[in-house]
């Protein structure tokens, strides 16, 4: 390092290393080791109940690329991610614009909107299963009395209903994240910009596209990247709502990993699925990390 390295600076560096040591230790034990181990395990065939395995080289990977289940799970993951993410973004921005206005009891309205995001997925799923109940659920009752359907609908047991339901519940649960993030940004847009646009004769819609949206661009990119990563790896919501069914029509990659490891008892194959899934996510993760770092640098 530099020649101006004084004794004090070196002692500070040592103290800094001591303070980070517990973090590094925990990271190595519970994150780095399992991560490397997952890649290593993907070269084995491991029978879950006995945990005995044999080296099979790359055959887990070559097999998984040939099986239809992997590709259909990847397809489902993409449909789910794109579907729920677009709804979250559109509905989230709209709701943030509404809550940015001076409506009655604004802080109460905000808390009510935030609530789905903070409750447990288990609670959300139980409530929605009850709403979706085929005999006594309020959803079927409302749709029938509104004349939209004639017979009670099976929301989770048939396709494409199951996928649509999962996407909608996902949007309901996670759109508040977009609302808070966009709302925070909206509050920092200077009023002068709107005043100037008004003087130029821009109406409310023109003001949204010419002033608000460009100002939101930065934060929206970050939100979309984060939510894409989180939606892609979502397990709880889909697993609990449909379990991947009917048949395998809502089975996404995380569910496939779980099924392979703990229902079909092949941990090696499951690890291979997990590693491939992570490789796909890596693209988004690297884009997000690079963005964050360049922002910090500037």
């Amino acid at each position, binding site marked *: 390092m530099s020649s101006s390295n004084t004794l004090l600076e070196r002692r500070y560096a040592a103290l*800094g290393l001591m303070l980070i040591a517990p973090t590094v230790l925990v990271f190595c034990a519970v994150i780095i080791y399992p991560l490397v181990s997952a890649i290593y395990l993907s070269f084995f065939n491991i029978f879950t109940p006995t945990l005995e395995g044999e080296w099979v080289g790359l055959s887990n990977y070559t097999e998984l690329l040939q099986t239809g289940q992997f590709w259909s799970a990847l397809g489902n993951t993409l449909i789910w991610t794109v579907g729920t993410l677009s709804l979250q973004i559109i509905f989230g921005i709209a709701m943030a614009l509404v809550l940015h206005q001076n409506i009655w009891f604004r802080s109460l309205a905000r808390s009510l909107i935030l609530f789905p995001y903070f409750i447990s997925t288990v609670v959300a799923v139980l409530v929605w299963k009850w709403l979706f109940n085929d005999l006594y659920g309020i959803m079927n009752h409302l749709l029938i009395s509104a004349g939209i359907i004639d017979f009670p609908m099976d929301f989770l047991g048939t396709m494409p209903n199951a996928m649509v339901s999962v996407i909608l519940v996902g949007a309901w649960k996670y759109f508040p994240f977009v609302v808070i993030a966009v709302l925070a940004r909206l509050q920092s847009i200077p009023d002068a910009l709107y005043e100037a646009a008004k003087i130029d004769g821009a109406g409310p819609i023109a003001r949204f596209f010419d002033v608000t949206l460009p100002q939101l661009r930065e934060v929206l990119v970050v939100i979309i990247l984060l939510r894409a990563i989180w939606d892609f790896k979502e397990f709880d919501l889909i697993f609990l709502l449909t379990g991947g069914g009917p048949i395998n029509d809502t089975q996404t990659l995380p569910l496939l990993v779980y099924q392979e490891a703990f229902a079909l008892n092949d941990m090696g194959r499951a690890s291979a699925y997990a590693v491939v899934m992570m490789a796909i996510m890596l693209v988004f993760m690297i884009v997000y990390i690079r963005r964050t770092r360049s922002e910090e640098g500037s």
Partner: protein
Amino acid sequence: MAHLRKILFNLMAWSIVLAVAFPLFWMLVTSVKPQFELFRRPPTILPETWTFEHYWTLLADTNFLVYFRNSVILSSATTLLVVAVATLGAYSLVRFKYRGRESLAFLVLFTYLLPSVVLIIPLYLLLVQLGVSNTIFSLVIAYTTFALPYALWLLRSFMAGIPEDLESAALCDGATRMGAFRDIILPQLLPGIISTALFTFILSWNEYLYALVLVNSDSSRPLTTGVMNMLISSFNIEWSLLMAASVMMSVPLIIVFAFLQSYLTRGFGAGGVKG
């Protein structure tokens, strides 16, 4: 005219808000209806007869209290461990200079985004080998995998917001580095620590996948898998009981939410979005 438009806008806004909140309202209503009223056509919006019998059944006849206790122990232990480690770590990452510091920060962000299903198989094998599977302790270990990167990332941005001058002034006055940390940094960081702790607690309280895989005995099951088991294992699904369980399970979150909302939104801005 402007007045009428304002009223119309408010009505529209509030009907959307109420529609979003409706499932939660329905959960509350269902939990205080007697069983027979659930099957009424058309359904009653407000209960005709109010009853708290489901809450009593839940507390007296099911394992709910055991699960609840487990969840409290699990989430508190995870939060304490993670916040303690992450506070020191974040201080080091922000205010000290040493080789590898940048790569560490990068690693934290990377693990913050990592999916649990990748880590879960090796972690399962590791915890079985250590002989601690099926305990609350094993879940505390597993929960640090997502809670620690998260807490570090949040605390790091809170720490970066504290002006460096204060610390330098204390050091000039002859304070030691750790003395300055205790007397200057910690009090300034306290709001950040509180919101990080709240978020970590909520994350642990709501976690499902690790609990599903690592624990399968009723004595150490947390609420998420415990309550879900009540749905799966019941012969005749009692929706009122399940809704009562859902309400009870959300009570700690409601308390946190009502009293500490400002801390929550602060943390949200610092970690979730600014990145």
